[in-house]
């Protein structure tokens, strides 16, 4: 009997490997529908955009290091500062958190074999790549977007910005929005329907709550931006009137719609970072998260309340006092879910026995920077103070502490944390800790002086400034800090590359984390889990009895689902199995569809509307090809 059991298990595993195998080589990457490969594609692509945005920042900082510098002129500077914002927000942080981390980790954490819609997943990546290429091709013609990342009108109208710059901006964002919407849709349905048996809402990892909150926010926030950009292009290209008061429009319409998207956007940016923090802390503190239900609700609540605060970006526009006061109150309310989380994290660290290895150090840095950024944010809820310091470097400091300190630091910690899972090798701990300190000091040096120089009256988006205003020394320090920060980030990259080549094999579970990704091999096989795990707590990898039962299930052939390309669908609330879904195999249609859409957007940019229509029709044909290939019906 002991001899027969292993060969039965071997046969099942081989059946799974056959069912889930993808083509080798470059063609395999072009047609992949595996969420892990798509996650990696997102990861590398967003890193390239991160580098681009970083170079844009360093160029700006070089120009601003001293007063009266003439390294970079106003035209180039305006394109750099606009593209820095656009790149970092739309082409780095959102695709990195939702596309790379979300795609790779969510199915693993919920015990599924892939995302709900694998081909749609691939499409979201190829559309993202197309949108990024579209947006960056603007540099080739020296007409990159130049009206700031929030592109206020009337400055962005044809009369004041007659080149293609703003058209690249508006069309590029609409293009990218489609990708983000599809990605968010996929994450939501995956989290709703593909959770492992037994994973009711109260047993779902906090990382997934964060991804769910961010994805729901994307769904409800992006349409405002899409509509705004459509209005802008209709006005610029076809002479419609939305934003000029001479014909019944209103310039503030742009601002309202932009910020109705823009404020939830900042929570979309930071929520996945919260999710990473709530993954790393319990693991390294070796204790479950204190006040888990409060933290889960806080993550959803911050997204929800975040929809009601947008006009705090418009406090200086002269809107009515009642409006000012309402939005200030809502802006203060949204603080509470964040303070709940901060204290929950700190209490977990205190109640547990933390090991301060690199991932946890990055979370420590994150907490400090998040609190600084949060405190300056609260200051902006004092309306008179906001009206004094908005549009100065004080607000630049605030949002960089949040976006860099609070959103990127967890990403860096998360890269180290999940590096062993993705590659099967350990990173170098000493180099990692050094890279933390360099990045931490660099971040502080770059962004803290901005508070001071903003209070001293330095406005934002200026390509140079006068001597004698007291700003010089601070700007020099910030520039030096920027290069220190870049060095720290470079060190992280070096660590990753070296460890990939020469790192010690890490094994399945080097940190004894609590969530399901640690139960499978490093790296995971294409099918993620040989047996679909059954879950009875939020920390399934700490439930040894359940995991031993999984091994016995493999022997019995229970929940292996090796008859095809299968994963179970479960009910939304309780995680009880409702169906077995047959997943599609690899497919060329997503990359082809994305190609036609990219062509269509270039044609719209150059005002070839009829040809653009033909490109869209071609896209419909690719969708036909796509849907002709139905996943094969499995048993049941």
């Amino acid at each position, binding site marked *: 009997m002991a001899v027969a059991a292993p060969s039965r298990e071997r046969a099942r595993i081989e059946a799974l490997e056959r069912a889930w195998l993808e083509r080798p080589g470059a063609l395999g990457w072009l047609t992949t529908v595996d969420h892990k490969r798509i996650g990696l594609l997102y990861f590398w692509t967003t890193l390239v955009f991160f580098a681009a945005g970083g170079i844009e920042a360093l160029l700006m900082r070089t120009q601003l290091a001293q007063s009266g510098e003439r390294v970079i002129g106003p035209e180039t500077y305006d394109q750099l500062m606009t593209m820095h914002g656009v790149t970092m927000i739309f082409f780095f942080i959102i695709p990195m958190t939702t596309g790379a981390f979300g795609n790779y980790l969510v199915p693993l954490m919920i015990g599924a074999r892939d995302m709900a819609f694998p081909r749609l997943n691939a499409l979201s990546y190829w559309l993202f790549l197309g949108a990024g290429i579209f947006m960056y091709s603007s540099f080739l013609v020296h007409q990159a977007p130049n009206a700031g990342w929030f592109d206020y009108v009337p400055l962005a109208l044809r009369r004041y910005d007659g080149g293609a710059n703003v058209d690249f901006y508006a069309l590029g964002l609409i293009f990218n929005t489609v990708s983000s919407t599809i990605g968010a849709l996929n994450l939501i349905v995956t989290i709703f329907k593909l959770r492992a048996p037994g994973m009711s809402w109260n047993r779902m990892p906090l990382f997934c709550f964060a991804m769910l909150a961010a994805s729901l926010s994307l769904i409800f926030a992006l349409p405002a931006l899409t509509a705004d950009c459509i209005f802008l292009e209709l006005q610029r290209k076809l002479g419609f009137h939305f934003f000029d008061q001479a014909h019944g429009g209103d310039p503030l319409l742009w601002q309202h719609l932009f910020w109705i998207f823009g404020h939830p956007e900042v929570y979309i940016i930071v929520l996945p970072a919260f999710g990473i923090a709530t993954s790393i802390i319990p693991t390294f503190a070796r204790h479950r998260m204190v006040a888990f239900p409060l933290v889960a609700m806080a993550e959803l609540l911050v997204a929800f309340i975040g929809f009601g605060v947008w006009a705090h970006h418009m406090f200086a526009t002269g809107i009515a006092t009642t409006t000012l006061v309402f939005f200030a109150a809502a802006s203060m309310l949204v603080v509470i879910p964040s303070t709940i989380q901060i204290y929950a994290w700190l209490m977990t660290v205190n109640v547990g026995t933390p090991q301060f290895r690199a991932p946890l150090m990055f979370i420590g840095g994150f907490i400090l920077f998040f609190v600084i950024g949060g405190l300056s944010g609260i200051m902006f809820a004092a309306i008179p103070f906001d009206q004094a310091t908005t549009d100065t470097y004080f607000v630049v400091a605030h949002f960089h502490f949040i976006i860099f300190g609070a959103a990127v630091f967890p990403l860096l910690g998360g890269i180290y944390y999940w590096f062993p899972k993705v590659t099967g090798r350990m990173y170098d701990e000493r180099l990692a800790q050094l890279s933390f300190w360099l990045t931490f000091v660099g971040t502080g040096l770059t962004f803290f002086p901005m508070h001071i120089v903003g209070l001293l009256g330095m406005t934002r988006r200026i390509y140079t400034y006068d001597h004698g205003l007291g700003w010089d020394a601070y700007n020099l320090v910030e520039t030096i800090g920027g290069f220190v920060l870049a060095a720290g980030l470079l060190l992280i990259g070096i660590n990753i590359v070296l460890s990939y080549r020469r790192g010690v094999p890490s094994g399945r579970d080097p940190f004894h984390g609590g969530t399901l990704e640690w139960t499978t091999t490093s790296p995971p096989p294409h099918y993620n889990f040989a047996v679909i795990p059954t879950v009875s707590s939020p920390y399934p990898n700490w439930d040894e009895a359940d995991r031993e039962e999984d091994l016995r299930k493999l022997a019995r052939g229970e929940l292996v689902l090796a008859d095809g390309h299968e994963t179970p669908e479960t009910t939304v609330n309780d995680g009880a*199995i409702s169906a077995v879904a047959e997943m599609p195999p690899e497919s060329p249609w997503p990359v082809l569809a994305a190609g036609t859409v990219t062509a269509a957007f270039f044609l719209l940019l150059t005002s070839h509307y009829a040809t653009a229509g033909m490109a869209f029709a071609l896209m419909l044909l690719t969708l036909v090809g796509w849907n002709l290939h139905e996943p094969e019906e499995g048993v049941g």
Partner: protein
Amino acid sequence: MTAATLPVRHARAKGWWGMAVFVATEATLFGTLVGTYIYLRFHNTHWPPARLPKPPVLTPSLLTAALVATSIPMFVASRAVGAGRREVAWRALTVAFAVQVFYLVWQLHDYVDAIHRYPPQESAWASVYVTLLGAAHAHVLVGVLLNAWFLVRIWSRLTRYRAVGVQATAFYWHAVNVITLVVLVVQLSPHL
């Protein structure tokens, strides 16, 4: 336990949920368009501009009523595919498709007229009006294409994949019908 013997609970397929999330996005988009109409209304003393004739009432209302009524055959089709009854589903889809095509062709013809009567290059009201109607008709067109696709697909065979597709399309149509009603109210609001 194999897939065939798993204890399963009745629940909606993931494809239906995907459509639900997509509908949420599109509904929000229309909310933004309608919100824009309302916002600009409060920034103008004459909305629409005084010299423009008010939009027609009868034709859009009758056409919209016909379109909304197609929710019934779409519902029938959705139920039928769930029960595996291919011919019933196909016939219901055909009925819906015929009315929807009729609606779309007539509305597109009137839309071209509307652009001439209310040039968007002359006022914000016309710009919003034309954009809102254009978006609505575009969504109807997408629904018509979806119906056409499934008419072809379930003519030969009904698989689970296609059945879920028909149910998702039915959901899409219910949403589009609600949105069309809302757009109609906005379209006719100068008369209120």
